[in-house]
């Protein structure tokens, strides 16, 4: 007599302890053997930094002598430090690029989602900046932004007034760096939106078209609501990475000129690796983390939790 095993849904499998061989001491040992190398590294390099970093925020620490508990002193010091405030302000200003980058990336994704000849070339072209290191990208744009550089040549060619070196001018430096972030990031979000677009059932759009809906109607009533989960993920990622902006500043301006491009994380970095004030740096890190979480929640609210239907 044969009995077919009852079909179990994945969720149910999960609840009953999942698939696979019986739970025996030996099998448990084997499972942990598979997990162990990963878990050790995870704890040392991911969990421990969160725990020890939080502790360090309440200490004075310079690696050489053991950490000294100072309570909230680091946070008080940050509160009074103008450089920290200007870093924080710049990090918040950086959020300005979030809507720009998201709208552009979505438009580009819609364009490259069309079945056209040679579309693969364009998708790849837009992705080249994404896969290039900030070390290289930063250097290239430093050259492009020179006084007699390519950006100024092109501005002159299209009849705009020529500016000086963008990165040496405190009024333009931050925006020049922001443009590079935008330029490098569009391709990344384009791919995410492309994935989202491909997840929307073409039958739905087709049915609407047959019922006489115009292209904009289809976009606003079907495509965009279907993309809501992707929009949440993308705007969340881009807001958080705006607050934590670091690498482009590290490569292009080192916080200058005259501190005009200090970001919150660049401030933290300088305190740790230039001044060896690890406790102060850790406190800055906690403030950045809290701000990221707040903006994450705001994002979540604005996109209504990214649910597909409003």
């Amino acid at each position, binding site marked *: 007599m044969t009995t077919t095993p009852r079909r179990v849904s994945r969720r149910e499998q999960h609840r009953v302890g999942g698939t696979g061989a019986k739970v025996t001491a030996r099998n448990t040992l084997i499972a*942990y053997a598979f997990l162990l190398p990963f878990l050790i590294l995870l704890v040392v390099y991911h969990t421990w930094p969160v725990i020890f970093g*939080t502790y360090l925020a309440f200490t004075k620490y310079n690696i050489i002598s053991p950490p000294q508990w100072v309570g909230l002193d680091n946070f008080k010091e940050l509160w009074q430090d103008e450089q920290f405030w200007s870093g924080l302000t710049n990090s918040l200003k950086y959020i300005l690029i979030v809507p720009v980058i998201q709208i552009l990336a979505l438009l580009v994704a819609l364009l490259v989602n069309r079945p056209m000849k040679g579309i693969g070339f364009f998708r790849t072209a837009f992705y080249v900046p994404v896969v290039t290191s900030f070390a290289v990208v930063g250097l290239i744009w430093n050259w492009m932004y020179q006084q007699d550089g*390519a950006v100024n040549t092109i501005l002159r060619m299209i009849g705009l007034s020529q500016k000086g070196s963008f990165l040496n001018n405190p009024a333009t430096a931050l925006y020049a760096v922001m443009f590079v972030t935008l330029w490098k990031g569009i391709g990344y979000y384009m791919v995410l939106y492309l994935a989202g677009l491909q997840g929307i059932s073409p039958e739905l759009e087709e049915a609407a078209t047959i019922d006489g809906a115009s292209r904009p109607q289809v976009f606003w009533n079907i495509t965009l609501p279907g993309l809501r989960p992707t929009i949440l993920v993308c705007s969340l990622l881009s807001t958080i990475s705006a607050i934590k902006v670091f690498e482009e500043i590290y490569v292009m301006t080192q916080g200058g000129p005259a501190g005009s491009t200090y970001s919150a994380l660049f401030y933290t970095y300088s305190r740790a690796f230039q001044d060896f004030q690890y406790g102060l740096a850790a406190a800055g890190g906690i403030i950045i983390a809290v701000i990221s979480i707040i903006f994450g929640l705001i994002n979540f609210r604005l996109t209504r939790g990214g649910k597909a239907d409003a």
Partner: protein
Amino acid sequence: MLKARPAPAQPDSFAVTAARLKAKRIQRRRLTDVLAYAVLTVIALIMLYPFYWTLITSFEPTGNIYEAKILPKAVGLRNYAEMWKGTTVPFWRLILNSLIICTLGVTLTVTLATLAAYPLAKMRFPGRDLIFYAILALMVLPNESGLIVNYITTIKLGLLQQTNPVIDAIRQYLAVVLPGLASIVGLFLLRQAYLGIPLELIEAARIDGASELTIWRRIMLPLATPTIAAFAILEFVAYWNSFLWARIMLPDKNLLPLSAGLLELSGTFSTNSRAVMAGAVITIIPILIVFAFGQKYFMKGLEGAVKG
């Protein structure tokens, strides 16, 4: 607003109207295609011109270095030769370092994730769900102090000690790759891929007496190959491009990877940007090669990461 459909009076005029509508649609489609190509070309120019400009300038021996141009004024390999010979740290050494770091990093990261995802997807054992959700939480949890604490950990582990040149080199390569080896994203990608593998296959192998390690190697790995390839490409790009961690940590400039070394050179080479441009071009090429060959997997891997 719905468009009113023209009501045909006679069958004959219906066919004519349909043909006219179709012609109109094709014409409109052609027009939007042309428009789309125009916009796409402009964006592609903005995206690619900085790279193209760096490439052609790196071949120019002299001239106005920074201005925008379409073609190089002259072509020569002098800057490449200078980059190759004229630095305190030999350039081939930077390339070698990058290759070692990438090989070590990609191999170990992929191995660890493919191993760890197996029990999480296909075995039953106490604590499984707890571990899974703990890892999930780590992904959400902020890791701001990562850089600082990992630096302290690296020092405490003695990885930056200097005793013997060969052992020092090995230790420092390890120090560069260790913090990145446990990839949470990779674990999720692979667990997802494993979940799709039919359980019957694994059960049958277990009944035949195959060990779990054999099942992992002979069933799981081959069936998850596309995901593994995508993940490996992602990791290659990440390790090849990483510069910050290595730059913060490595006391020995001879052990810097290419990206980090390039920044070092741009500082010391401030009088000859063309040579640094040559270096930048050399740094980009491997990424473009890997990306060109693995583009299909790469995009899929990213898409999988979003859909989770």
